Structure formats: C-alpha cells, structure tokens
C-alpha cells in the first residue's frame, strides 16, 4: 500500500474505482466497502474505545464518498481511505479530549514521560487487559500502534497513512509498547 509502490496497473485500477464511485456506481462503492470495512471497523472501534465505532465507520465511508473526487492516485486508494479514516478518528478523539479538558498529544512530540523504566516481566497477557491498555494510550500513539502491531501495516505504510516520517512511526509504536508494558506491569503488581 506504500505510495512509492503505487504505479501502473494498480494505480489505474484505483483511479477507475474512484471514478466509478464518484459517478454514483453503487457496486463500486460496495467493492470499496467490502475490501476495507472490517479492518476500518476494528481500527475505529479501538481508536474510540468501542463506543462510537459504528458511527465512526459510517462517517468514514460518507466522507470517502464525498471526497473521492479529490483522489488523484498519488497513493493507493486504500492508503487514501485509511488516511481519511485515521484523520477523522483523531479529530473526533481530540475534540472529545478538548471538551473534557485533557491535553492532547502530537505525532512528532517527544515523549516527556520516562516510560522505559525497568518493570516486572509480564506473564500471559489477557486480551481484556491489553484492550484497556490500548485505550489508555494517547491518540497519536494509539493510532500508530493499532496500524502496525494490531493491523499489520509496515512502518512506511503507517507513515503514509498518518502523514509522518517512517522514523516517527517507529518511535510512536515503541512508545506505545512501553506504555502498554507499564500499564500491564502495574496491573500485575497490584493484582499480585
């Protein structure tokens, strides 16, 4: 899905699909939905903490329909869609945090908190605890972690989707793992 590899037949197919969606072809829109809805639903669900996933997915595909005319084929249609989706999720999260008076994070911000301190070695990680630890991550950090570690995108793809450098993607994912470790470690300590 990397933009650097997006050329030739794949690019033409993406441009064709985007053009058909723009002209109102319901089958083309359905093809886009079927290809990406499940993965986007998982992302939206974990970005929002589960509560708004359905609304978010609906908003994402409506936005995609409205904006597909702006797709120029610079990246794959999938990357374009994930970028739009993650921007929307991050906007919603940041607005929610602003309303609640919380400080929001930024992709390129250095992490002020020393999260790499030695901690207890984790035993088996329960899925529920891991979901909670992910939910506690700052939004930008969560976005990179979900795309890379949960959904399996490469760092270059994550960078393309989030509009950051590959190095920033690696840094954010590492910070996320450290924060999750700290969260799970503290939980094990308090439980034990």
């Amino acid at each position, binding site marked *: 899905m990397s933009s650097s590899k997006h050329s030739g037949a794949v690019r033409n197919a993406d441009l064709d699909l985007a053009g058909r969606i723009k002209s109102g072809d319901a089958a083309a829109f359905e093809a886009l939905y079927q290809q990406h809805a*499940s993965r986007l639903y998982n992302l939206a669900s974990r970005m929002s903490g589960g509560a708004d*996933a359905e609304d978010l*997915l609906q908003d994402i595909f*409506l936005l995609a329909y409205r904006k597909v*005319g702006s797709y120029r084929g610079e990246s794959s249609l999938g990357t374009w869609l994930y970028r739009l989706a993650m921007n929307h999720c991050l906007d919603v999260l940041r*607005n929610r945090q602003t309303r609640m008076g919380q400080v929001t994070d930024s992709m390129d911000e250095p992490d002020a908190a020393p999260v790499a301190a030695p901690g207890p*070695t984790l035993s088996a990680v329960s899925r529920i605890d*891991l979901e909670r630890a992910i939910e506690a991550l700052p939004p930008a950090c969560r976005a990179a972690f979900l795309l890379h570690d*949960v959904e399996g995108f490469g760092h270059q793809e994550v960078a393309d989707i989030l509009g950051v450098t590959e190095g920033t993607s690696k840094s954010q994912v*590492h910070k996320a793992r450290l924060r999750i470790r700290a969260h799970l470690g503290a939980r094990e300590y308090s439980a034990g």
Partner: protein
Amino acid sequence: MSVNTVTCQELPVAAYVEGELDPAGERSVERHLEGCAACRGLVADLRTVRAAAFTLDRREPPADLLSRIQARIVSEPKPAARLLAWPNTRAAWGTWLAAAAALLVATTVGIAPLLRPSAPMGSVPEAATPAALVDSVQADLEAAEQHYDRAIQGLEQIARSDSSELDPQVAAVLQKNLQVVDQAISESRAALKTQPASATAQEGLFDAMRTKVALLQQTVELINEMRKGNQAEAGRLMQDLSR
C-alpha cells in the same frame, strides 16, 4: 548497568525487537542481554506485547451498515457546482479566473457567519447532537475557514484587477449557482431554528454547507491550476465544475 561497553540507555531495544539490526548490532545487543536481567525482561515484555496485539479479537461491523450508508448517500444533495458553465475558449479562462475569484469572495462573505463558533449551530443542545458528526463538521469547517481566508487574500487582488473582463453570462451563471446554494442554506437554517434538536434539520444544514465548501474548494483548486499554467488539470477541473 554497563555490559561490554553498551549501556542500558544506549541499547537499541526498539530496532532489536523489530529485527532491524545488522548481525554485528544484534550480537552486541545479545551480549548485553546476557549480563543484564532488566533489559532481558524489557525485550521479552515488548515481544509479548507485540505478539498479543497481533492476536486480538477481530470485530465485524453490523451486517446492515452498508445499506444504511448507501441510504444516506442516496439522500445527499446533488452538487450545485454542476450548474456552472464551461468556457468554450482559452480566452475565456481569464474571465473564468475573475469570475471564480468573485464567486469565492461572495460566497465566503455568506459562509463566514456559519463558520464562527458563535454561529447558530452552536446554540443547538449538545445532548441532542450526534457527537461524532458534529465534531467532524466543526473540524472541517474550522479547517475550511483557515484555508479560504488565506486563499481569499490573493484572490481579491485578482478579482479587482480582472473585474472589467468579467463575462456577464459567466457571472450570471455563477450568481445563479451561488443563489441556489445560499437558498439551501437559508432554508436549512430556518428549519433548524424551528426544530433545533432535529437531527434531520442539522444534517440538512450540514449538507448545504458542505456543498458550498465543496464548490469553494473546487474553485480554489481550479484557480491554482490555472495560475500554474496546468491547462490539462484545469480543464479537467472545469469539466467537473460544469457537470
């Protein structure tokens, strides 16, 4: 702790866990890990987190979500930009530029009150508003306001210098197009005034505003391409606007 000259702070843990180190780098890290239980535990934990993340449950969207989205799409208003006329000659492009600039200035004057936080939408009770939708629209509008404010400063200059060349027919079409969009916004705002908690009324206003923003966005894009002398892209954009 320092083992074999590599300290814990210097240890490239992230790159090691990602498997990005060359053989020499890996050996250096492994030598450190052999003598450092804290870093060994850290590496093991990071690998555990990564492995656990990859095996998280997969969730599926509701089966009827696609049909609900498609129903929303069907109810979307047709883009008002399709009323715009297509200039027949290259000579008309200069006129188009001035007309587009004039349209941009005029419509921005109309939309500016809606973009401010104190606009009537702000008086809608928050509890009655779908949070995600409102957030999305508000974020879009705030970004649009900044975008258009910057564009207008340059465009006003063009409008002033080229206004004498404005083709009356093109100007009339643009004016008609503007009136259609403004009428839609006006009606939606009136509906919202009588039913402030109505999701349908809110969505109607949002849709009308989106149409206007989309028109402005296309117009700005067209002007930019014309300024760059990119006739092929400008032609394509003008075709879009004239549909």
